[in-house]
């Protein structure tokens, strides 16, 4: 064994040039390895050469060159290093010490006596040298000749050493190049898949690059992009520009912007709602990439859903009111009948001889009161039926409940139901849409009445209560003495189109829950003691101003 430090002048210039050409000309790793192996075998006079590359999992054989009838055959592979393929102890030594090992007559000198490969194959000349790139070990070149000892001369090893270090650099570069190409391909795939819109921006406004998906979103074509006619600042409608400006410091600080919604102008002047996420390039905060999702369809679907829900809510309300039809007629007729009777009485008091003005006056006063009562009933009904945008009022829940009870009063009597109210006197106001909340109370009361409509011999009792739930919320309860709710169906009750009623739509509770949740509250059902159901909802208390 001897360490070789060959002077440069001993180098075979032709070989070096050949390899250098190969290395610079061949960026593809397979081609490069083929050239390297072939040259090494030919130049060094080896019978067999192995290229070992150090991977994360350990050294692997990446290529094998063998000579057969004067021909060099190079085989690229990826195999584990084993003692049956090479003198493993020699390789380990090289990888460990990062020094060349030359055995002039391995089997005779018995330098690595424990190596089973040398012993078995009667290996004569062995040359193994590390492949280094900037002090980093990337592999080893292993050459052997079993025919003659001392094959690997010092001068030749110097060339091989240079060759190996050249190759090491090339292999590393090639791997980097390949990694880069893979990453580039992946990114290309992402961009060209056109699943999301992607563009590369400059902070001052220019869009440098964009994929078809983004161009299609904003209605421009590639020519516009190439001609630098696309500026994100100009695509942004004026009312969004201020917010964009406010986001820039955050982008500069964290390098990214969490996805947010905005709009862009299309080329035709219309607008497209988008969801956009932004990342600045690491090396230059003034440039970056943006990922854009077209929200048009989603917005349209959401709007359609909202409208459908609104329509269903109105239909449901109309159905609920329809069920109260007879009661409502009664509620309106009651004051009208009284007005007619009082007017007739008043007219008689006036035409009496002598006219009784005091009594006529009293008749008229009653007429005034009953007219107010009638118009209040009509007003309540109109409010309940009419299409209205949700409002934010200060709502006195007790008042709202009493109004609903006035509407359902006759229905309750008709079903011979005893109503108990326990309304907390100091209930704080809540914020929300008074009419919507009343619709829910109405819905729950009508449900309770229907639940008790089948005769079962029990006293029919409807209890309506309001109370403070805690410091932040108030609770309203509607309890009935009907058959109650099967606990296993309790959650399904709130699903759309789930109904236990013959003519029900199955929307009442679903819509009620949606409304309550939109108010920041909860709607749930539980048992009412041993008989009946208790429907409860809570609403947040209006914070003191």
């Amino acid at each position, binding site marked *: 064994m001897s360490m070789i430090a060959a002077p440069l002048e001993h180098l075979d210039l032709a070989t070096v040039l050949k390899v250098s050409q190969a290395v610079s000309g061949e960026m593809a790793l397979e081609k490069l390895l083929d050239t390297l192996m072939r040259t090494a075998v030919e130049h060094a006079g080896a019978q067999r050469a192995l290229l070992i590359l150090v991977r994360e999992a350990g050294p692997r054989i990446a290529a094998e060159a063998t000579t057969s009838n004067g021909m060099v055959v190079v085989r690229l592979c990826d195999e584990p290093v084993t003692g049956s393929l090479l003198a493993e102890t020699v390789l380990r030594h090289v990888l460990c010490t990062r020094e060349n090992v030359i055995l002039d007559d391995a089997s005779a000198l018995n330098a690595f006596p424990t190596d089973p490969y040398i012993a078995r194959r009667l290996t004569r000349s062995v040359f193994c040298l590390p492949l280094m790139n900037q002090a980093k070990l990337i592999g080893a070149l292993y050459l052997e000749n079993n025919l003659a000892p001392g094959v690997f001369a010092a001068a030749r090893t110097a060339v091989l050493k240079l060759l190996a270090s050249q190759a090491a650099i090339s292999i590393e570069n090639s791997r980097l190049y390949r990694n880069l190409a893979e990453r580039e391909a992946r990114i290309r795939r992402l961009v060209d898949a056109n699943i999301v819109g992607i563009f590369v921006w400059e902070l001052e406004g220019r869009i440098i690059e964009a994929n078809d998906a983004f161009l299609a979103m904003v209605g421009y074509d590639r020519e516009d992009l190439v001609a630098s006619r696309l500026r994100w600042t100009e695509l942004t409608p004026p009312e969004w520009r201020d917010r964009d400006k406010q986001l820039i410091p955050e982008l500069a600080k964290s390098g990214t912007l969490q996805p947010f919604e905005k709009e862009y102008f299309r080329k035709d002047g219309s607008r497209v709602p988008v969801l956009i996420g932004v990342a600045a390039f690491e090396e230059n905060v003034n440039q970056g990439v943006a990922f854009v999702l077209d929200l048009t369809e989603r917005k349209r679907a959401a709007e359609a859903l909202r409208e459908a829900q609104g329509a269903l809510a109105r239909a449901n309300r109309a159905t609920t009111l329809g069920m109260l039809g007879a009661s409502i007629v009664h509620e309106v007729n009651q004051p009208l009948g009284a007005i007619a009777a009082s007017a007739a009485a008043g007219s008689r008091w006036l035409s009496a001889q002598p006219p009784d003005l005091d*009594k006529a006056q009293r*008749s008229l006063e*009653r007429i005034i009161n009953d007219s107010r009562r009638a118009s209040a009933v009509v007003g309540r009904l109109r409010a309940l039926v009419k299409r209205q945008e949700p409002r934010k009022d200060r709502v006195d829940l007790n008042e709202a409940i009493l109004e609903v009870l006035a509407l359902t009063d006759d229905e309750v009597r008709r079903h011979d139901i005893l109503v108990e109210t326990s309304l907390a006197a100091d209930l704080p106001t809540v914020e929300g849409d008074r009419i919507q909340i009343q619709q829910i109370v109405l819905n729950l009361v009508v449900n309770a009445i229907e639940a008790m409509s089948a005769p079962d011999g029990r006293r029919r009792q409807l209890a309506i209560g309001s109370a403070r739930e805690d410091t932040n919320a108030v609770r309203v309860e509607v309890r009935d003495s009907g058959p109650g709710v099967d606990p296993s169906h309790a959650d399904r009750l709130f699903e759309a189109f789930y109904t236990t009623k013959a003519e029900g739509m199955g929307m009442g509770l679903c819509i009620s829950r949606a409304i309550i949740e939109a108010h920041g509250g909860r709607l749930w059902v539980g048992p009412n003691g041993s008989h009946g159901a208790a429907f409860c909802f809570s609403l947040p208390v209006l914070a003191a101003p």
Partner: protein
Amino acid sequence: MAAERPVVFVIDDDPSMRHAVEDLVASVGLEPRVFATPQEFLQAKRADAPGCLVLDVRLPGASGLAFQQELARAGIHFPVIFITGHGDIPMSVRAIKAGAVEFLSKPFRDQELLDAIHAGIERDRVQRQAAAAIAELQQRFATLTEREREIMALVLAGHANKRIAAKLGVAEGTVKVHRGQIMRKMLAQSVQELVRMGDMLGKPKS
């Protein structure tokens, strides 16, 4: 015969309706008495005067129709006028069959209600007169002896004195004497009148 002013009883749980009807009744010179519930009415002292009942069919606790039946069982025979916010035809048919004078839907014309009230009072007056007449006849009938009642029944059945005598195994003359007593005690001028009285008494048993 009672000589008091006719009384109109109004039962309606709705205060404005109750007071409006009260006012209307008073404006035509009748005496209204108003109640919020049937119980209040049943517990109230009522003067022995002709009258009628104005009733809302949707009363708390008991429907108007059920209350009508309850009145009959309690021996209160005032004609009933129904007022309702939402009467249907089957309901009104049942009410009329059960002896209602009128069935009015709100809003009703005042004259309709007043006509019905007057008709009701008139019907009650006739009923009361008939009832008084019957009571008078019952008193007279009570003065008859056992034998006289027996013979009266046979007379009302259309039997001649001879036949009655044979049936009872007495002399025809004896029958004649009893018949004279019957006519005198019952204040009947003729056999025909006695037959009418018998009808009013509802075929008194011998």
